[in-house]
């Protein structure tokens, strides 16, 4: 099985670097635009960045917690 060039380790490192650069860019771009906070507390610098990140962490943790109780093997109801 040949390995596609995009999944070689050095390219994955480059993809991460590019991704982080884009992330930084979206935060810096906030300096260039006029913000219209919707709720007040979202006027903090980079609000949407940390809010999006935090919301996803919480959602994943909530899902893990629920999974502890409600996960079953996928043949639970039979085939």
């Amino acid at each position, binding site marked *: 099985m040949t390995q*596609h060039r995009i*999944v070689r380790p050095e390219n994955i490192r480059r993809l991460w670097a590019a*991704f982080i650069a884009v992330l930084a860019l979206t935060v810096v771009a906030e300096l260039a635009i006029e913000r219209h906070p919707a709720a007040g507390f979202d006027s903090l610098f980079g609000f*949407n*960045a940390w809010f999006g990140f935090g*919301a*996803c962490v919480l959602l994943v943790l909530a*899902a893990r917690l629920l999974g502890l109780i409600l996960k079953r093997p996928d043949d639970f109801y039979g*085939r």
Partner: protein
Amino acid sequence: MAAELILPPAFALLLGALLLAVVPGRLRPAIVLGAPLIALALVWRADGIGGTAAYLDLTLVLVRADPLSRWFGTVFAIAAFAAGLFALHQKSKLELVASQAYAGAALGVVFAGDLVSALVFWEVMAIASTLVIWSAGTAARAAGLRYLLVHLLGGTVLMIGIAGHVAATGQAALDVLGPDAPFRWIILAGVLLNAGAPPLSAWLPDAYPRASYSGMVVLSAFTTKTAVYVLLRAFPGEPLLIWVGLFMVFYGIVYAILENDMRRILAYSIVNQVGFMIAGIGIGTELALNGAASHAFAHILYKALLLMSAGSVLAMTGRSKCSELGGLFQSMPVTTVCGIVGALSISAFPLTSGFVTKSMISDAAATQGMVLVWTLLAAGSAGVFLHAGIKFPWFVFFQKDSGLRPPDPPAPMRAAMILLSVLCIAIGVAPGLFYTFLPYGAAYVPYTGDHVVSQLQLLLFSGLAFFLLLGMLRRTETITLDTDWLYRRLGPALSGRIVPPVASAWRQAETAIAAASSRGLQLLETAYRSGPLSRPQASGTVALIAITALTAYLIIGYMAATG
């Protein structure tokens, strides 16, 4: 009396379904593709009221065409066309016939001007969509039956509500049911069941993924969005809907995060997306209602696209579990790119359709000063990217290499995906034309620097969270229990203990009733002649009691049959 004849757009597809059932196979493609186009033309020809009929003391209105019905009619016709194109090689004639009847009935609901006509088409949808599920073969039988029973229950609830409403008011118009409208809560419950709202939303992820590769594309478009349409018509600004919608948003995300089957992930995300629409209907301002209607439009297109992408993978590999997929981008470039376009659209990335529609709902919440609702909608938007926007393409097309090298699917399936991809991007890039047809009055400017930068931050940092938490998101071969456990496990288990004693009590009661019947009949006759039962409004109440008893009987019967 030269009233212009307005043909109900539904007829094009219902007639198409009849023709599909009888014509030889080589003529089928022409009908599968032609009937939706004729329906689209009829949608745009229709204006005002047409096709009325007297039934009992009611006026039935088969066509009530206004911007809202044309809005949903347009996207339903487009969806029927695209799904037909995708299913062109589908061997099951039953699925093609049922799909077209199903789409036709959905058009019937959105053009119905009264509750009774809407209910008739509603029930046709339930039956036709069950046939779409069943046409996938024996593996879909049990899930299809559960789906049918839940929808018959919902239809019965809706019928109780409508019968009660008509009996109490003498009116059957499908219009806003204000806070004082009798039976409004029962009607609301019946409609919400079809929208995938709690507590019975499990019917959707249980049944839809059992349909064929093309069947689930059809199913995703109509049932839940018809319910959204009726909610827009009858319950705009009902505050309860905000919280029902928000519940659905987070339910969909959390269950999709835990899910392993790619098509079940997308099924949960239907509930999630309909949640945004229902929250918008609950907010109820013109901007919010435009947001709900336009998000329904955009959602039908990108969800069909996502399910076509997943359906292509299923058709070419026979697999749908994320744990058995991965690395498919190397041999399925068209499916991958189209799947990514769908994923970006559902995530509301700038330049895609979701961006110009969903933001109306959260902006409406902000304008109304609903800070908590706005905050939860923003968190939900981040979660959409997490559970559908990245999770679906990542686990199916990238992650580890599964070693599978299936080619892209045949030309009609590729063409359907490309068509929908183009539409998703066109709406996102040039929303001006799209906005001119919005059913409500509010104007909206989606592309401001603030909006674009905020949304990019929200989504890209959600992406960062996804890749950092990848270890916690690794797929396991599991399902997550939902409320369907109540009728798949608890009900049958209990009915084994409850039904025998109830049945014997029932037999005893029957004997007693038979013994007392002659005397009882005499008493009833006397009571009817002189007593309160002879009042005319009692018939509605009696019908209500009878239907309620029948519903209870159905449920007990179902538990006895499955136990």
